[in-house]
């Protein structure tokens, strides 16, 4: 589904990602872990098409298409979803208007009829229960005044509504208490099918108790320095990132 080859990304002239290789297949859950500043969020943003991040080398193919050649909105409509680490507050844009526009833009792209108001409300109700999102939130402006936990739930709610093929969840667990974490993880698990894939980016192993990854990759200083199965995450939790630094021979 997703094939990343030697991806190099710079921000304001500073190279952050120094050659990433990663393959994600349908039905898989990948976890990308790493200490702060290792480039995890940069990878997520670059895949979603944020122009602040300059691709200097490498290629990314997604469903046989050159992903890097697509605009952010086309990536989204091709089925790539980015769950933001810091969801943006947009005063004045109502959640309902935002969600309906987003869904209907997806429909338009697939040359399908837009959802009627009734159909849309039905879909909202259905997906709301999935992430236990408060009804009141959907009557407000996008993320405006939402708590940290509500913002993250809202990301998963949007993911549920848009039904992406590939979800990249950037630090979805940060700032969540244990209840919210459970709800968010549950949502992600329920949305899992054999045809879609999830890339979970996280600093802590904690989330991976709930979302069980098939693969774990450790990103350090812009490179994937180690890949393994779930046990790698457990090892990291026990020994910390310092262990890895010694293990891979990179300086601390």
């Amino acid at each position, binding site marked *: 589904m997703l094939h990343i080859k030697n991806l190099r990304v710079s921000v304001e002239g500073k190279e952050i990602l120094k050659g990433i290789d990663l393959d994600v297949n349908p039905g898989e859950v990948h976890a990308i872990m790493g200490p702060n500043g290792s480039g995890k969020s940069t990878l997520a943003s670059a895949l*979603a*098409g*944020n*122009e602040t991040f300059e691709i200097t080398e490498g290629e990314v193919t997604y469903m046989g298409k050159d992903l890097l050649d697509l*605009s*952010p*909105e086309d*990536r*989204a*409509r091709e089925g790539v*979803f*980015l769950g*933001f680490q810091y*969801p*943006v*507050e*947009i*005063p*004045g*844009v109502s959640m309902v*208007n*935002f969600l309906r*526009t*987003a869904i209907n*833009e*997806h429909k338009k*792209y697939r040359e399908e009829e837009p959802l009627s108001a009734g159909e849309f409300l039905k879909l909202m109700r259905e997906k709301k229960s999935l992430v236990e999102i408060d009804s009141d939130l959907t009557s407000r*402006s*996008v993320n405006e005044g939402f708590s940290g936990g509500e913002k993250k739930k809202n990301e998963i709610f*949007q993911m549920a509504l*848009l039904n992406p093929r590939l979800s990249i969840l950037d630090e979805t667990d940060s700032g969540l208490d244990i209840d919210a974490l459970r709800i968010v993880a549950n949502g992600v698990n329920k949305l899992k099918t054999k045809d879609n894939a999830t890339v979970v980016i996280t600093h802590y192993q904690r989330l991976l108790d709930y979302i069980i990854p098939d693969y774990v990759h450790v990103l350090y200083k812009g490179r994937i320095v180690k890949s393994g199965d779930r046990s790698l995450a457990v090892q990291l939790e026990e020994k910390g990132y310092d262990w890895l630094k010694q293990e891979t021979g990179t300086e601390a």
Partner: protein
Amino acid sequence: MKTMTEPNDTVKKFTSLFEEHKEEIFASEPGYLSDMRQESIRNFERLGFPKKKDENYKYVHLEPFFNGSLESRFAPRNLEFDVQEIFRCDIPTLDTYVLLLLNGFYYSTSGEKLVRQDNGIIFGSLREAIAQEPDLVEKYLGKYADSVNDPFVALNTAVAQDGIFLYIPEKQELDKPIQIINLLLSDDNEMVQHRNLFITEKSSKAEVIICDHTLSEHLFLTNSVSEMAVMENASLDVVRMQNEHNQSVQITNSWIEQQKNSNARHSTITLHGGRVRNNLNVKLKGENAYCDANGLFLIDKQQHVDNYTIIEHQKPNCVSNQHYKGVLDDAATGAFAGKIHVFREAQKTEAYQTNNNVLLTRDAKMRTKPQLEIYADDVKCSHGATVGQIDENALFYLQTRGIPREEARLMLMYAFADDVISGIREEALKKRVADLVSRRLRGELARCDNCAVNCYD
């Protein structure tokens, strides 16, 4: 020592116009009015037009527009036009009492020029009211707008022939809003100076919608004055929608005086215009008066919109909120100057002002200047001004949800404008304004061709 500067040619042009047409201007009007005109033209002659160095008119130099070749008319003309045509335009589908002004003169489709309701409410032509309700009009006309210190008010007072008169007696309420449609239509370049007078007596209530439209492509210069008195416990809502073409110059002078426990809300929505200057002057003359003054403009190309406000807190315990916003595209320029004046006596005043602007290009320019003069010591006052761009993070967020960049930009611009729109109390009007603003942002409003919008680029 008294120094007198010689009036310049533009001023002379209007003083001699006044002299030449005196008979026509004074025709069959009461003596007090002619006296007021005489005095006003002398004031105008003394004041002259605001100079470039005049702090209050720093960003828009209006005198040159008065210099052009413009027809001034002191009696209505019979112009061929189809009233039904304007009803194709969007705003008139609201359920309102529609009053038409054609080039500043009352235009009646039924022949009736002054409507009297059973409850004593009167509305219609000011010219007609001067004749039919001499005592009532004399009591209020010219009492609220300052024709001693303001040259545009002075000029208007000297020559204005007609406009809208609205009178709501004590404890009465309009059952639906009054909608004034100002139509500009001519076969030559024309100057229009009309005068409105709205009186809401004690514990009365009224809503007024004013729509400014240009119907022909000629150069129009409007210098209008609206006097509004909001008596004790009364409530007055005024929403002005400006939608004139790029060759028009519009100066509006709105003067609101509020008594004890009164409530006034004034919104100016500028969808389109060539050069627009809106002066709003509010005097809070009784305790516990509340005033909302809102503005929103959406401009592009070479358009200029200048909003100037003065809120005078003369008595204690009054609240005023000013909220002005602007979206500027292309090489459009805008200015906002808002003054809050708190008198020594006006303790416990709450006066707030915000001015937020979005520049969509590098060429667009916005100038904003808050001005606070506070002489009382126990007050809450605040002001804030921002000039910025569309939030790139928000744009990207919307894009990652599949919303195309252009659509996302529109959503954000609309969202920016939204809180001024949501300040409009009348639900149907709010929806209509919301629709117009969104169409304006999409560039679709130009298709409303009977408004003659965008006929010049």
